[in-house]
């Protein structure tokens, strides 16, 4: 049984005409799989490679470079919550915010709550510096996150 559904395969193949080389579809393919499966299992790496006429090692090489994609053993939760730690946020309380979120969620940085709802991460500058300290909820900015605001946000994400 293949890991990638027909629907995922079609979406990946839809990217092929955009580029003069199939290898350029590597990142879009990894994003599609990662979004859907919350990780990129080794079997999926092999299947992506087959779709793109690549060696699995080529796909894995790109994938592992970014530190963004998770393997099967550390699957992401429903929501990935990134707390920015770079200078603009650090000057406005990012360290406290990250510690607060870690305690509130009861997980280390990089960990996922037991109910599988939230994965906590630190991020390097997310480009939301006018609203420091800021977080990313998957790929959307939330700005001016006080500890109270973080608690509210976490409650909302838990209810999802």
């Amino acid at each position, binding site marked *: 049984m293949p890991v990638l559904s027909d629907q995922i395969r079609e979406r990946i193949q839809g990217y092929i005409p955009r580029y003069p*080389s199939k290898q350029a*579809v590597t*990142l879009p393919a990894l994003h599609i799989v990662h979004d859907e499966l919350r990780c990129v299992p080794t079997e999926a790496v092999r299947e992506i490679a087959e779709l793109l006429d690549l060696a699995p090692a080529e796909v894995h090489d790109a994938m592992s470079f970014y530190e963004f994609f998770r393997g099967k053993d550390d699957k992401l939760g429903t929501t990935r919550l990134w707390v920015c730690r770079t200078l603009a946020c*650090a000057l406005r309380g990012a360290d406290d915010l990250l510690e607060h979120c870690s305690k509130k969620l009861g997980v280390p940085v990089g960990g996922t709550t037991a109910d599988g709802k939230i994965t906590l991460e630190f991020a*390097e500058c997310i480009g939301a*510096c006018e609203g*420091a300290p800021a977080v990313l909820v998957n*790929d959307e900015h939330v700005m001016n996150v006080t500890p109270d605001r973080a608690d509210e946000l976490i409650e909302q994400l838990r209810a999802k």
Partner: protein
Amino acid sequence: MPYEPVLLARVNKPDSHRLEGYRNDGGYTAFELVLKDRKPEDIVTQVKDSGLRGRGGAGFPCGLKWTFLPKDHPGPIYLCVNADESEPCTYNNRILMEKDPHQVLEGIMLACYAIKSRTAYFYIRYEYGTAFRTLQSAIDELYAARLLGKNILGTGFDLDIFLHRGAGAYICGEETGLIESLEGKRAWPRIKPPFPAVEGAFRKPTIVNNVETLACVTHILQRGNDWFKSLGVPPDPKNPRDAGSYGPKLYTLAGHVNEPKCVELPMGVTIHELVERHGGGVWKGRKAKAVNPGGISMGFVDCNAPLKGEDGKTEYDIPLDFNGPGKVGCLGLGTAAVTVIDDQTSMVDVLHNTCQFFSHESCGQCTPCREGTGWMLKITDRIRRGQGRREDLDILVDVADRIGIIPGTTICGLADGAGWPVKTAIRKFRHEFEDAITTGRKSVIKSLPVAAH
């Protein structure tokens, strides 16, 4: 008279991101006129003569870059739009993409016409999800209006714009790192030459331009070179290599200011004026101690250090044009992202934070950068923990001096950007570091558990 913004003119309008509003405000008329009446070479010449320099960090003359493409190339030629905006404290491109994407897209369309490109890859960092979706709907609007696709406006000009998402790596903002990433490989910068204009994406001639640079192209073709050159700072007559600092610029304010925000001004505003007048001053009634003039990789300005030969002025008064920051030992204007650090903040902690960033973001290709950024992080970390050694400051400066393209030990400039904050912090705030070492004073350090994966 206060300056009337051009790049940010539309950002507060309702539905500023929609095609209809943009067209009602005169959008795409420059593109239509250029497509019907002007030759590509003519546009390259105009942009070259406008004096537009790249807004992404290096400040390379935009039109000159375009002329490096091989003449009469059979194609394809590619435009890569650099929207990997990852320099800490920089968010000007995000504002343009989220609030007024069509002026950026019009600039891309004009640039593609000028350089005879039929395909633009718009490389956008993953963290900008809102901008990504806003741009995708703006591009969809353009295809529906037949302003993109085949035979645009019946002129025979074809153009596709494809968005391509990154995956959280600072190095993808380096133009050849971006190209490698686009090609589906690890984003290791390439040795230059060949420069991308000769051999870039998919081994074809490629121009990589920043988002704000392309937005400027739109306005240059709408308003003309006289307008562009009426703003900013002309070349320094004493420096024959200075290409001037013309045009409007988006400055982003961050850190300890009362109103962190993106401000558009003619090039050359002083840091002092930007912070005090436009940013509402330093927060909590405090004073500014240090400032990064253009992202953290440009190093630090010491707000209290007197400027030589300028009575009563300090480094806080330097102009933010392409030359200003360099005159006080910074690497350059960079992205014009201004981070203010107040007088209650430890420079040891600030420098540790910058070292942490570069150590995390070094791509690992060149040993001096991979190892050097790690060493600088370790040393600043032990100084923070009250375990600094007397020789540490000299070691830090020594490492910072030896990594980068300026000493000639690495392929790209990431290491220069990692070294500059170290060199400038230690040179300008040495007493703070010495004090931390001799007293063994500890910073407040969070011991956060981190999951292994």
